[in-house]
Every structure is written in C-alpha cells, then in structure tokens.
C-alpha cells in the first residue's frame, strides 16, 4: 500500500539529508535492507496509532531542534562503581576520555570497526532483532537507526564479567543530532552489566540489540541526562534464550521528549525478563513515553514491567505496554504495572496497557492507576510533624520504590535514589 503523501514526503526529506555509512559488504547490505524498511513503512506521524499520545514530529524533522546545555553540578553518575568507561560526545567517540576497551571475559570494540571487517559475529545480530520487531507494530525510527548510525559499541561477554561497561553520552553542542547503535551478545552462561548515562545530544537516537544466550544474564541500568530541552528516542531489542535473565531499569529526569521502546522476545523456556522505569518530569514541555512489547514464545517464562511516573506542572506521561502470549507459551507468568502520580492538576497520564493471550494455562495481570498524592498518607505524615513539602517528597520516593527495587546492585540503587532526591530538593519551594 502506498504511503500517504504527507508521510512519504516527510520520510524522503529526512532520508535525503542522511548518507549511508561505509563498511564491509555485509554491513552495507544490512543498512540497505534497513533503509528499504524505512522507505516502505515511512517515518511515524501523529496519525499513527502507535504514536497517538506522543508527537514524533521533532524526531522526524530534517533538522534537530536545538537544546540548551545544562551545567551538571552533580557528582558523576555511577562514579562509585569500578567500570569500563566509553565516552561519546554528541554521538562521536572520544578516545581521550574513554578507558581502554579491555576487560576480563569481555570483548569490546566500536561498531565502526566491527562493521568494517569482512568476517564478524556482529553480522548475525546487527539489524536482525530490529527487523524481527517490525511486526506486528512498525518501528521505522529503529530501522532508520540501523541504516544510518555509523558508530556505537559491540560487546561480547563470554564469562561472568565483574566490571560493568559504562557508555557515557556527553552533550556539548546545542544543535547536535546523534545516532548510535550498540550490539551485545551474552554467550551461554555468561553475565554482564551495561550502564548508560547522559543526554548525548540535542536529539539522540539510540538502539541496543541484545542477544542473551541460554543460561546467560544481562543487567542494564541507565540514566537519561538531565538536560531540559533534549529529545531522545531509544530502542532496546532483546532475544532471550533458555533460562536466561534480562533486567533493565531506566531513570529519566527532564528532557522535552523521551520515547523509550523496549521489545523483548522470550524464545527459550524458563527465561525471565524484567523492564522497569522511573520518570520524573516538571513543566508542560516534558513528555516521557515508555512503550514496551513483550512476546512470550516459550514455556514457563516470566516477564515483569514496572513503570512509575511522577509528573508536575503540566508534564505528560505515556505508557504503552503489551504482553503477547503466543499459542503454546504455557505456564507464562506476566505482570505489568503502570502508575502515575500527578502532583498538579494540569498533568496528564495516557496509557494503553494491553494483553494478547493465546494460551490457556497462563497468569497475566496488568494494572494501571493514576491520581494525586493520597490524602490520608499526607495527613498521617503531617500529623507526625513532617512539613508538607518534605512529606510530598517522601511519598514520591515511596511511590517510585517498586520500580527502583528492580535494580539488583545496591550501590546503583543508592546512586539512583540520590539523584531522585536531588531532583526533588531542587524543586522544593
């Protein structure tokens, strides 16, 4: 079916401004295939059902809207953890600020290097999970990333890796427009932790494809930078083998527009996937969108989605979550909760928590709630002499706790909680 004219025009305008990166034949082929997907689907518009609550026009426009830089006065994120730091400034690799890409049980290299080699394992992963995830819902911005992102990191974990890999995305130019594409393969029985932080650019498109092999574990914790005007669309695609574990947590504060899509396929029996997010937003400019799609295609798997949003001064929160249980995926345990705490009357929470179930011996539940701070709890705290502002902050932290609990490493939890407290403290009037 031909695309509507407006969509076709917007898509070709965007594509005309981009050039395909060079590389080995297999990489060029993968990028061309991704470009064909983009051309066939067209870039998203507000009229698309999947974008009914989030206007993607700033993510699709030819020029990235500019974003003022924030002087970050907080201690470096994850600073208390011994980690391998890899730094990108406005989407460009910075060797000087990065640690050597060496670690025990882990192989790390840049995507631009991997895609230049004629023979590389990345061939089996690059754009592969993204392409698989285009059905039943189109994600053309992800295909755009596969086609045009020239760099990123490629990681292969072969053992239980002690040191986390930390991708740090710095934002130094008000008009930067960055795309990065990361690949991770956790080999059978191996384990690793990936940390990500930083605003990255005025406009940032980031894609992560993760292949978690049988019995492997992948932990992912990220903090999306505090810059107020940044825009970001991120995609996480994961494929889970038998008895593997996947855990991802994201803390988002500020930013004009953030759309985090997470697509997980449980393909091996008894695998487990947890995705969680805490987002705090202030002001009518803030929009945060968590879009999650979890497919159960094996027996005895567990999935858990926990998304919490605290919104104030007209901020908007969006949640689109889906659990799809394919025929035969018996003994599935699916859980999904999306909640919003609206601190002011002009905030909005828009949610579409879906279930699609084709197997009868499963337990899937979802819940979604939205409302103001519980007056009884507030009264209780105030009656114990806690001032209203502090009581509010306490209740906000308590509300976010269920999402934070998804982070296993307590040092990281502390770091995250500290940042949330900082965010609240700056807003104490």
């Amino acid at each position: 079916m031909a695309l509507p004219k407006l969509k076709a025009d917007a898509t070709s305008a965007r594509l005309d401004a981009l050039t395909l990166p060079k590389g080995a034949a297999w990489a060029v082929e993968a990028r061309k295939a991704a470009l064909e997907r983009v051309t066939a689907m067209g870039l998203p518009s507000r009229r698309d059902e999947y974008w009914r609550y989030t206007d993607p026009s700033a993510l699709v426009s030819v020029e990235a809207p500019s974003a003022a830089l924030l002087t970050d006065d907080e201690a470096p994120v994850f600073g208390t953890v011994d980690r391998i730091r890899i730094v990108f400034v406005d989407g460009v690799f910075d060797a000087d600020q990065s640690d050597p890409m060496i670690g025990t049980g882990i192989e790390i290299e840049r995507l631009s290097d991997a895609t230049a080699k004629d023979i590389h394992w990345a061939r089996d992963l690059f754009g592969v999970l993204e392409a698989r995830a285009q059905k039943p819902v189109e994600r053309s911005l992800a295909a755009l990333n596969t086609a045009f992102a020239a760099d990123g990191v490629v990681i292969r974990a072969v053992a239980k890796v002690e040191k986390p890999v930390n991708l740090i995305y710095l934002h130094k130019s008000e008009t930067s427009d960055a795309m990065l594409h990361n690949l991770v393969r956790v080999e059978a029985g191996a384990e690793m932790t990936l940390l990500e932080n930083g605003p990255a650019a005025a406009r940032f498109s980031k894609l992560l494809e993760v292949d978690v092999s049988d019995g492997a574990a992948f932990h992912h914790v990220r903090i999306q930078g505090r810059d107020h005007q940044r825009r970001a669309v991120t995609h996480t695609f994961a494929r889970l083998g038998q008895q593997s574990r996947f855990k991802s947590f994201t803390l988002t504060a500020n930013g004009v527009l953030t759309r985090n899509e997470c697509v997980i396929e449980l393909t091996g029996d008894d695998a487990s996937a947890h995705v969680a997010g805490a987002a705090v937003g202030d002001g009518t400019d803030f929009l945060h969108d968590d879009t999650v799609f979890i497919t159960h295609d094996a027996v005895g798997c567990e999935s858990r989605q926990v998304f919490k949003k605290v919104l104030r001064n007209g901020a908007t929160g969006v949640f689109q979550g889906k659990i799809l249980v394919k025929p035969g995926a018996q003994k599935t345990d699916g859980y999904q909760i999306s909640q919003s705490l609206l601190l002011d009357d002009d905030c909005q929470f828009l949610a579409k928590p879906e279930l699609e179930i084709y197997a009868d011996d499963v337990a899937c539940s979802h819940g979604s709630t939205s409302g103001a701070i519980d007056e009884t709890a507030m009264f209780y705290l105030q009656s114990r002499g806690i001032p209203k502002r502090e009581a509010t902050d306490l209740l906000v932290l308590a509300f976010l706790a269920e999402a934070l609990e998804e982070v296993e490493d307590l040092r990281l939890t502390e770091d995250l909680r500290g940042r949330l407290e900082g965010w609240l403290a700056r807003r104490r009037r």
Partner: protein
Amino acid sequence: MAALDVTEVREGVDEATVAAVARLSGKYKYGWNTDIEMDYAPIGVNTDIVRLISAKNEEPQWMTDWRLEAFARWEKLGEPTWAMVNYPTIDYQSQYYYARPKSMAERPKSLDDVDPKLLETYKKLGIPLKEQLLLAGVEVAEDAPERRVAVDAVFDSVSVGTTFQAELKKAGVIFCSISEAIREHPDLVRKYLGSVVPPSDNFFATLNTAVFSDGSFVYVPPGVRCPMELSTYFRINAENTGQFERTLIIADKGSYVSYLEGCTAPKRDTSQLHAAVVEIIAEEDAEVKYSTVQNWYPGDEQGRGGIYNFVTKRADCRGDRSKVMWTQVETGSAITWKYPSCILRGDDSQGEFYSIAIANNFQQADTGTKMVHLGKRTKSRIVSKGISAGHAQNTYRGLVSMHAKAKDSRNYTQCDSLLIGDKCGAHTVPYIEVRNNSSRVEHEATTSKVDDDQLFYCRSRGMDEEEAVALVVNGFCREVLQALPMEFAMEAQQLVAISLEGSVG
C-alpha cells in the same frame, strides 16, 4: 458442541463453568426460520435504495436529505480495520437492505390485524405480543406485583407492532417504532436523532444513518417513572438481508426507564450483516437502564454463517446527576464489534457498564466501552468478563477518558478473561487518558487483584486466600448478572454457573 467436547480442560477451571458455556453457546435454539412471503427492495445499496426506504416509511424531506447526505459520506469511507476480528470482505452490494413481510404492506391498525404467522414467530421465541401474557420462563410469586413488559417487535426491516402503547400514553411515555415517531413526533426526533451518534461517527453508523429501516423510539417526559419495562425484540428472518435498526431513547428531566433488547436469527450458511445504532439521551436527574442479551446466530462449529454484528451504542448523560447503565450478555454473533459508551457531560453524572461476553467455536468478539468524563465529580464503573472456548477470540477494548475539567471524577475498571482450551484467545486493549489530578482511575485485570478489604474480611473469617479470592470474584460476576432485569432470569440462571476461577487476566 463439538469444539468443546474435544477440548481438554486444564486444571483449575471449574467444570460447571465449562458445562454452562457449552449450554449457552451450544446448540442454537432460535435457528429455525419463518416461511413468509416477503417484499424486497432491489439488491444492493445506492441513492435509489436510500430514497426507497425513506419513501416506504413515509418520511418528510429533511429525513430523506439526512439519509442521502450520510450515504454520500459513507461512499467515501473505508471500513475500519483496527478491531481484532477477521472476516472475509463484506460485499455491500450483494445483499438486501429492505425486506418486509408482504402482509405488512398495509400498516396493521392493531396487533389483532397482524399476520398470524408473525405473531406465531414471536410466540415461538417466547416474546409475548398479547398484552395479557407474561414472559415465558419467568415465574412470578403469587403475591408479587404484576410485572409487565411493553414490546416493540422488529421483524427484518419493519416493526410488527408495539404493545401497551395506550397504557404508556396515559403516563405520557411515547413508545413506538422509530418510523412511526418520525411521522408522529417529528420535532422530538429532529431535535435528538443523530445528536449522540452523528452521521459522521463511524463507517457502520454512517451506513446505518443512510439505510436504517426501523427501530424503536422512547420518550419519557419529565418526572415520569416509566410504569413498565420497555423492550425491543429484533428478529432477522430473510436470507441475504442486512438489518439496520435505529433506537432513540430520551429520558427527560428526572425520569426513569428500563429498556431491554433481545435478538435472534435463523441458522444459515452465509453470514448476514447487522449494523445498528442506539442513542440514549439522559437529561438532568434522569436514569436509563439498558440491558441486552445478544443472541444472534453465531455460525456453526466450523465457523460457517452467523451474524456480523457491528453496533454503535452511545449514551449522552447531558444533565447533571443523570445516570446510564449498560448491561450486556453477548453470546451470539460470528463477529461482534460493539462498544456501548457514556458521555458523562453533566456534573455528578454516572455511567456503568457490565458485560459478559462468551465466545465459542469460531466466534470473534471485540467489545467494551468508552467512558468519557467531561463533567465534575462524574463516576464510571466498568466490569467486563470475557470467556473464550473452542477457536474463539474475545477482546475487551475500552476507553476511559478524564478531561481536564472533569475534576474529582472516578473510574474503576475490572476486566477478567477466562480461556477454555488452548486454541482460543483472550485480549485486553484498554485506553486510559487522564488529564487532571483530582480524578482517580484504576484499571485492573486479574483475579488476584481483588479488593484488599474484602479479602481481609474473608481471611479474618478463616478462609484461605484462594477461597477468599474465588468468593470475591464470583461475587463480582454475580454483580453483572444482578444488573440484568428479571426478564432475563432464564439466561442469568445459566450464567450464574460460570465462575471466573482460573482467569488469565
């Protein structure tokens, strides 16, 4: 019930439930057809057919124009594809849009003049068209007050007759076919028709606006409590014929009316189209209860035939403190596409939606509700139970929207699904849109998420958790059934056996 017989029911699903589902959705009892001479309009739909339907109903020019405008719009529209239902492309030109029993060519003056064959049809369906008769299957205790139901019987494209009209008139209630209302009460009809579901609403509503042939009309004047239940019974009989009826219910200030709707059709191998529009207007302090037992022919065990049911039902709670309650039991139709909704415009207005949808064999149901909160302190409650068996697909699709001005409003939604067998599907697609912070919205879809207080109460009386949950959930299911009027007692009795134990969410 071949499909269920071969299904292995997993542990944890109540046997009585399986039996009740089998009974309810098993052998279709109303599959016979009435052999009667019919007048058909030429096959297909075009402006001539629209004019012909309008002429047959002796409509004024404004009505004809309204239809033609809708038809012109419909021709430009595409069929919606977002629902989770699959069916072969409908050829809108290969069916009849108007079919009337020959004997109805001259409008009967009273029910006594109606063709005995038609009366026989309704008798066989258990619908009393003689005013002194009670509904079949309803036993009334001797000292109970007399219960009477006024019936408007619609057979294919025309209304056959309406009972108790004289007595209702005494109370000031107008209850007649919509074609009669257009002739007799044009001002009322013109004021309200299309004001809740505009001609531009959706593909099927637009088609209905152009070609609806009959339906029911109710007007309850201010302060009047309608002295009896009103009901419409829809029967599709003719082959290859679509039924397009239109219902308009107006409850003026401070009035109350309870309205029932039933529907059946003969067994045929080809599918038939049914696209109805129901509009309800509730003014200040008015209350409307609308109950449906939808039992259109669902098709056979192989999925052949059955009614394609595309229905637009919407209530406008215009006045402050008005209340509308939808209760539906959906057991029939090959395809159900139906979202009875409430626009809660008046302050303190209330909308309720109780639904049990049972799909078996190859049935597909995509049903739910929309609660649009516009007024302050508006309340809505949604309780939906979906049960799938055989190869059926059952989807709950709903919208709860709290507008910025709907301060201090409240919604509670609970949907549960139960799958019997591993070839069927159960889906939930809720849309939740909250645009102020003084309103509370809660959506739940699981048996383990029952009210903590109730659970605690049961536990404190020595029940174990499982027992307590089962009790509370079954209580919920009964709540839907209790919302059904007495006239559906037979259906309700069978449904009571259904438990939601083993729900999958």
